[in-house]
């Protein structure tokens, strides 16, 4: 099971600003180790954020995103106390979902 994400969600005016730090190696598949063997690609391919059951963000990532990615986005319609959930899935089928509560 992958390590937990750090999520912060706070009101910025009438929008909710969400900041997520994900713990992931994001291996591009183009590096070689000390022996010259290619290190297998292992990176997040899909990210989705939901609020009250509705998807507010969906993203398709590739090997260009760095290790331990930071994602920041805003959406309308959220209020303090409500939950925002972030889910990522990677090319090996690993998956992780974490939640945060919107602060005022």
């Amino acid at each position, binding site marked *: 099971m992958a*390590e*937990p994400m*750090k999520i912060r969600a706070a009101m910025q005016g009438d929008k909710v600003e969400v*900041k997520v*730090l994900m*713990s992931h*190696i994001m291996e591009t598949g183009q590096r070689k*180790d000390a022996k010259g063997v290619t290190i297998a690609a292992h990176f997040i391919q899909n990210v989705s954020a939901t609020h009250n059951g509705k998807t507010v963000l969906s993203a398709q990532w590739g090997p260009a995103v*760095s*290790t*331990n990615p*930071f*994602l*920041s986005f805003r959406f309308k319609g959220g209020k303090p106390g409500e939950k925002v959930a972030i889910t990522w899935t990677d090319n090996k089928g690993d998956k992780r979902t974490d939640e945060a509560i919107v602060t005022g």
Partner: protein
Amino acid sequence: MRKQILAAVVGFFCCVGVANAQNTQQEIERYRQMIADGNPAELFEAKGEGIWKQKRGPRNVSLEQCDLGKGPGVVKDVYVELPRYFKDADRVMDLETRIVHCMVTLQGFKPEDAKRNPFSTADRTSDMESIVAFVTAESKGSKMNVAVSHPKEREMYQIGEKMFFYRAGPHDFACATCHGEDSKRIRLQDLPNLTAQKDAQRAYTTWPAYRVSQSTVRTFQWRLNDCFRQQRFPNMEFTSDASVALTMFLARNANGGVFAAPALKR
């Protein structure tokens, strides 16, 4: 007349050159502030807190009773007073030395096992980096306040000072060789002048840091170890007296500086 115009044109370009250098510095600062928000060091702080509270080692005990200088279990604001003399070990210790001490005395680890794997490699992550991230984060915002009241603290400071200026190794480098003058750089990395207060404060208060190029938190023991490597010195032993002496010298010189770590670096 032509000479005067030429002088004016040359003067103009010189001014533009200086203005550009200052602008670049400002832009770099602005960029650093922009990316400071998503510092992956926070992931290590969370992991470190978990390790701190987890029962481990032959005695199956957590580190929560470890005395880092302000009493057993107190983690808040300890880093800005380290290194310091610890009576129970009769030794001046920095944070990592003290953590190893607690792993041995509280958790029952053998010293070799506690000191194994201090720095993450491509194959293995280091728990020590996470623990240091957690403990140092609890000092963020406080002013550096290292004392040299105990005779052994004074001695360590003086040894550290001697080491800083001592030239050795195949290149005859001292720390001062790279860190003894203002406005120097190596390739595209600024070199802080550690003999000047402002630079000394800024440099020490931004370690430990998440090194983006290495995808992990690097500690002060790591930074000194890497300096030794760059000078082509023999390997600096983890938590050795030499490392503590240098740390004592540099930390004390940073007194008054506001601690800003775990920071984010290239």
